[in-house]
């Protein structure tokens, strides 16, 4: 079973103050720490688990500059066999352009399954994976929480809203967008990442792919980034922990809960 997994490096934004940049089209990124997109981490783990069970190769693909190779080396350390970075140069990217680039790269690889995360933690698009599938002309499923390949198809579990999963058989090759929680991603040590440096990492310039100008022209553009609209917000409880605890107990009792 040959698997391609598409991954992305994203800024870590939990417990971080994001500062809108001067052009108001994005955020200041200088002081942000970067990590593997959470969903993609699960996608890599799923690819490696399937490979351990059924054999074949896992290829990790990302689009970005040299620093983004960090996530490829991480994927290689987790068990991927080889990796590809497409350097977009100064090209402006949106979901549509990214999908076009990924589909073009994947077309030349051997694959039974393509895995992506459901979405990326930065732009929260959730469109790239399915666009790649459509461009490759293969079947697809979104928000996948279980995969069991069997012959030329896979039993796929999709997470729906409201505590419900949908189970289907899907003919391979297919693309699945992977939901968090599908597995428990393995720990990656610094040593492991160092060792993975010996594995294959190919770099391709986007202009070498032979994509048309149409394919490389974004369909969408962020005109402005802004802070969430003001809400009344929470009444903040002040004081030391003891004073805060007293206020919490009082509020809960006032609302008719006996504690």
């Amino acid at each position, binding site marked *: 079973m040959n698997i391609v997994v598409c991954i992305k490096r994203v800024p870590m934004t*939990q417990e971080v103050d994001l500062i809108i940049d001067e052009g108001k089209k994005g955020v200041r990124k200088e002081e942000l720490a970067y990590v593997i997109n959470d969903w993609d981490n699960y996608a890599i783990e799923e690819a490696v688990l399937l490979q351990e069970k059924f054999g074949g190769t896992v290829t990790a693909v990302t689009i970005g500059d040299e620093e983004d190779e960090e996530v490829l080396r991480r994927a290689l350390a987790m068990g991927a066999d080889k990796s590809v970075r497409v350097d977009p140069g100064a090209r402006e990217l949106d979901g549509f352009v990214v*999908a076009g680039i990924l589909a073009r790269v994947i077309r030349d690889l051997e694959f039974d399954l393509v895995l992506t995360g459901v979405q990326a933690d930065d732009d929260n698009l959730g*469109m790239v994976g*399915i666009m790649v599938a459509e461009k490759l002309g293969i079947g697809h499923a979104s928000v996948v929480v279980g995969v069991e390949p069997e012959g030329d198809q896979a039993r796929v579990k999709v997470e729906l*809203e409201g505590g419900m999963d949908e189970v289907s058989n899907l003919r391979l090759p297919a693309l699945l967008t992977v939901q968090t929680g599908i597995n428990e991603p393995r720990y990656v040590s610094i040593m492991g990442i160092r060792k993975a440096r010996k594995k294959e990492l190919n770099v391709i310039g986007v202009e070498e792919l032979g994509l048309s100008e149409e394919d490389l022209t974004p369909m969408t553009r962020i005109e402005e980034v802004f802070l969430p609209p003001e809400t009344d917000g*929470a009444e903040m409880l002040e004081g030391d922990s003891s004073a805060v605890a007293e206020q919490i107990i009082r509020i809960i009792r006032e609302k008719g*809960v006996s504690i």
Partner: protein
Amino acid sequence: MGEILVVVEHRKGEIREITREMLFKARELCSGASHELAAVVLVGDDAGSMVQEVAKMADKVLVFQGPRFENFDSHVYGEVLTSLVRERKPFLTLIGHTSWGMDIAPALAVKSGYPLATDCVNILLEDGRPFAIRQIYSGKLFSRVSFRESAGYVFTVRPGAFLVPEGELQREGQIEMHEPYPHMAKTGKEFLEFVDTGAGDVDITQAELLVSVGRGVGEEENIARIRELADVMGGTLSCSRPVVDKNWLPKYHQVGTSGKSVKPKVYFALGISGAFQHVAGIAGAGTVIAVNKDKKAPIFRVADYGVVDDLFNVVSALKEKL
């Protein structure tokens, strides 16, 4: 003057709430620009009253009925919608930003060549030009998105972004039965079953007080401390998605769109940042008290009371007092 097309989402014979929300928003967009509102329903042989219900909210209902529409199949939806969009060239197409919608919309955008904006919390028309408002960085910021000029545009709409007022939308839309496209290729998907993942030993939907824990709990060992607090307070333990993803608590404890919607008198959120999928699940809560280290955490936007502190300081202080 053009058409706004809403793709009706339904499951087990029931229209999903997102459908009403989209129809409501589409109506608003129509009235500003004299567009026509069409809803498309793909449904199995037994449609029940679904088509009539949709007709109350649309000018036109386009119905594709037959056994092959019995269960959701992104391939089948893709084929039908692509043909429909090519034929009718709707100015705007609205699809729910749900597991199903996320599987259809990007494929439709590629096939039709129309631009797509996903997970929109608002759709604006300015001088006839569409713009999308959507959240980025997990809701910490908003963005305003414009599109390359096109005959039509596709949007996926965030569930809960447009709340439907009671008692409106009593139209008598015209119902058009369409022949299922006969040339449709054989699908590679076969539906097997639905599995209920919400059942378990604890029913968080019935609790008066939920003591709910999120990513901020840090380690699996710490869950026990929150469970103790819930016991001391006489509340029920619940959690947000990251805790279930890490297998620290079973799925039936999870509050949110993919878990359960809850309606306690008090929802006590500890170390929960407040992703929209989570917040959607506590819309029915009476009072929300949130504790988080990050003063910018989105949970404080919806909470009634907030504490900026390490949750364990608050947990220890509460245990001492009770």
